[in-house]
Every structure is written in C-alpha cells, then in structure tokens.
C-alpha cells in the first residue's frame, strides 16, 4: 500500500464518517461543521487527483463561502438541537431503506460493469486540473456557458432581493 492509497482510504473514511455525522448530528451547527469537514476531505481527494484548481475552489467557494452562509442562517435563526423534533421513526426507516436500496442497486450495477475493471483514475499525475489548462479551455471553448452563467447569477441576485428583502 503506497502513500496514495493510504491517503485515499484515509480521506474516504473521513468523508464518509463526516457525512454520516452531518446526518446524525442533532445540532444544525454541528451538521454544518461536519459538512465542512466532508468538503475538506473531498478537496483532499481533488488534490490527490491532481485537480488543484478545483481543490482550491472547492475550499474557498464551498467550504468557505457557501457553508459560512449556511452557518450564518443557522445562527440567525438560533436553531439548536431542541428545535428539530424527531421525525416519525417509520419515516426515517423508510428513508434509510430507500436510500440504501438505491445505493445497493447502483453498486451492484457498477460491479457488473466489467469494462471498468481495467480502468484507473490517474492520481497525482496528469496536469489537466491545473488552472492554466482549465482557464485556457474555459475562456475559449467554454466561453458561451461561462457567459450564460451570468444570467444565473443575475436571477439569483434578483431572487435574493425579491425574496430576502423585508417589506
């Protein structure tokens, strides 16, 4: 087992554990923090996959900006463990089972996909994830979607104004 593998399994375990903690934490603030942990773990994976740009963006945008936003909202509402009553146990069970089913089905599919057996993800090597390469492509071939996302942000902005503004 080389370093990469050790790192991979460590990060994976961290991600899964944190994700489960997001799920089972009673206190929303804890959930937010665990989610940040998941994102960090995923960023770690990105670095492992030599996708440095995405790793940074993930940390800055997701863990930094978005999750802080969540944290603000949670704190703004002053939510804590007691504010969320327990959900019906049966419903919880049903939720877990159906989610589990989906997982099982998908996993069994992947197991059957024999064409994947020979395939490997290139870790630590391969420089497509470098900001130079991505930037080149983003501003040449992908300039149209890039511009179009501005519409998305405009509407998100309007939404924040229209919805969030107190009257």
């Amino acid at each position, binding site marked *: 087992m080389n370093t990469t593998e050790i790192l991979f399994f460590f990060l994976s375990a961290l991600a899964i554990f944190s994700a489960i903690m997001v799920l089972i934490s009673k206190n929303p603030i804890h959930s937010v923090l665990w989610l940040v942990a998941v994102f960090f773990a995923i960023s770690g994976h990105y670095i492992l996959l030599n996708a440095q740009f995405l790793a940074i963006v993930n940390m800055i945008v997701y863990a930094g900006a978005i999750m802080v936003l969540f944290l603000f909202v949670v704190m703004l509402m002053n939510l804590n463990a007691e504010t969320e009553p327990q959900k019906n146990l049966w419903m919880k069970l049903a939720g877990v089972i159906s989610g589990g089913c989906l997982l099982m089905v998908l996993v069994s599919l992947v197991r059957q996909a024999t064409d*994947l057996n020979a395939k490997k993800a290139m870790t630590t090597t391969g420089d497509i994830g470098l900001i130079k390469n991505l930037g080149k492509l983003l501003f040449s071939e992908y300039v149209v979607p890039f511009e179009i*996302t501005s519409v998305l942000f405009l509407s*998100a902005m309007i939404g924040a*104004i*229209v919805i969030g503004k107190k009257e």
Partner: protein
Amino acid sequence: MNAIIVSALMGVVMMLSGIIFQNKSLMKHLAAAGLILLLVANLLQSYGKYVIQVDTHNLLHFEQFGIFFNTIAIVATLIYVLLSGKDIENTGVHPAEYFALVFFVLCGVTILTSFNGLLMLFLGVEIMSIPLYILTGADKKNLKSNEASLKYLLMGSFSTGIMLMGIALIYGGSGSFGINPATPEMTMGGIPKVSFLTVSGLILLFVSICFKVSAAPFHFWTPDVYDGAPSVFTSFMATVVKAAGFFAFMRLFESQSDLMGATWKILLSFVIIATLLIGNITAVFQQSVKRMLAYSSIAQAGFMLFALYAGNDLAKEGILLYAAAYSLATIGVFAVLIKMKDYTLDGFNGLAKTQPVLALATTICLLSLSGIPLTAGFFAKYYMLAAVVKAGGALWIVIVAVLFAAVSVYYYFRVIQAMYFKEGAAETSEITGGFKIGLLFVAGLIVLIGLLPSVLLNYFYF
C-alpha cells in the same frame, strides 16, 4: 443565439427599468415590447441574421425546429403577458423584477431548445428553474406561496442532484458530455453495446427530466407548487416552461430510443400510464379549479410523453403543435381563473350569465384541453396518437390513453357545467374590454388551429 442574447439582455433591461421608472403599469408594456423584440430577433435567426456572431464551439446547435419552438414559446409568453400582465403587476412589490425573471426563464427555454451537450442542458434547466423558485414564492405574505416555493426548491434541487449524478455516470461511461452518449462508437460487432454506466446515467437523467415535466411518479411537486404559486406564475410555469422541458426531453432522447431497445419503451410506457392515471384520476375529485388544472397538466404531460414514445418525425411536429395548443388553452383558462374571486368549482357557477364572453372563451379553452375536434387540442392529441400508431406495435397504450382522455372530459366539463348549467353568480374582479378581446383572440386562435392546423403545420416544412 439571438433569442438567448436578447432575452438575457431584456431581463437586465427590465431589472434596471424597475429602478428607473416608478410607474408600475409601464412594466407590462415594456415587457410586451421586449417580447416582440425577442420574437423579431428569433425570427431573424431563422433567416440566418444574427445580432452577434458567436462561436458556440458546438455547445449549442440551432436548427429551425428549435427556433420554431422558441417562436411558440415567445408568442405564448407574449399572449400571457398581454392577458395577465396586470395581474403580474399586482402580485407583489417588484413587478420589474418579475418581468426580468420571466425573461430569464425564457433565456433558459431558448437554451433548452438549442443545447448540444449535457452541460448546456444542465445550465438551461437551472437557468429556467431558479427564477421559477423565486416566482413561486413571489407572494411573500402568503404562506401557501412560501411553502410552494420551498417545496419546489428542495425537490428541484434534489432532482438536480439526480440529474448531475446521471450526467456524471454518462460521462464515466462515454467519456463525453455529448448529446448522444450512447453513440454507435460503443458498437461491438454491429450490436450496440452501451456501458452500464451510461445506461444507468441515462435512467437518472430520464428521471430528473421526468421530474421537470412532472411525469409520474416524479410529479409530486406539481400540484402543490402549481396550487401554491401565485396564479399568474402558475400559468407561465404550466405552459411555456413545461413545454420547454418536453422539447429538451425530445432532443435528448429521440436519438437514444433505438439504441436503448425495447426496455426503454417498457419504462416509458410505465411512466406514461402512471402519469395519465394519476393526472386524470386525481383531477376528477378536485374542488379547486386551480388544483384541478395542476393535475390536468400532469395528465397532459402524459400525452406529451407519447412524442417520446413514438420518437419519429410526426412526434416532433406533434410536440410543437401540442406545446402551442396546450399553452394557448392553459394561458386562456388561467387568465380567467386569475380574475375569479373564488377558485373553487362553485366559484364558476353561473359565469355564463354574468360574463358570457369569459365563459365562452374558457369553454373553448377547456374543449381544447380535452381534445375535442374543432379546437387546437384535438390536433395536438391527434398528432401524439398518430405518431405512436405510426411507430407501430403499441395500439394498447393508445387505447389506454384515449380512455383516460375520456376521463379528462369529466373534470374539464365540470367547469363548463358550472359556468353554463348551474345557478349562481360567479364573481370576478374587474374585467376590461381589452382583456375580453385578448381572450377572444386566444379562443379564436385555438379554433383557427383546430380548423386549419396547416397555418401552423406548414412552418414545419419550410
């Protein structure tokens, strides 16, 4: 491309005009003017004239078919704005922003008619959806509106997650975000061999688009959101947006169906039957006309899915005709519904006496929705059925569909019965002469298409 650019720009213009102009009623006219501009721009494109020459690097692909759909969407929106513009202005305190969002939605619609890859599909869907979350919650003081908005958001995002997982799997299986993931590249010895990943990705993608077009069993958001949203926006959501979803659906899957084989049809027929069943049967018992229309829109979706099922040229034409017919009729019905004081069936009692013009127009719209000949709705349904029959081998599903169509008559005609045959004094808010004229125009258009669909159909063959 023209339409995408102009609609985005018009959105910005509307947004800014809210700051510049204080006069609320100006917005409607501005928006209408903008839509006409958009229409012109769109039509120019079909003659090869561009506002700005853009190299899309094959991420977007423009063809007459999509442009024609744009035209339908824009015209429908124009009619919608003209009929219900006043009600948009009266919904909340931000009319300019609402119009801006409507334009942004149109931008999303136009992307969906021209995407040539899963990335643009994803962006288009999101650009279309996010403004809708906002519009659904536009009536901020109304708890129903709030609730609908949150439900829509949560479920919409969830389906986005499903869609993305699907796209990721397709990418893993095929190595590209192309519109034809299951391409014959994968063929081995003449038999199309598609990766498990691609197929499961396609299923997830299928599911998420089913969600967008509210096909059962992914339809659950529809009644609640349509019911809770301010009626003006429901009207828009249920027509232009939904039709665009179908168009995207067609674009995405028409070429896949052959490769995916018989199972694909089984899956699709399952969805179709479930959609028809739930939409039609549940609508029967609704007391609120608005909610009934929500369910009926599910039922109509079931019919539109036939286009996918058939997957031939006739189906492509049919989906356009269906989009036009269905949008016109629904916009008409909603325009009247918005004017009603009481949204329940009883609220329509005796409308024929108090407002004969409204009642007549509503009747024509409802007849069109139920697919009675002489209305556009007939040809819409006709095309769907004809496409499936032409594709062959599935007469039973057509028969099931027509039986459900007969059920649909039940709930549509309950409104007609209330208006014409029941005693009562239906109350409406103030009706202007212009509104009546507009409504009659819509009704006339429906009948015109119903009598001579050639006026619309001939454009398919230019």
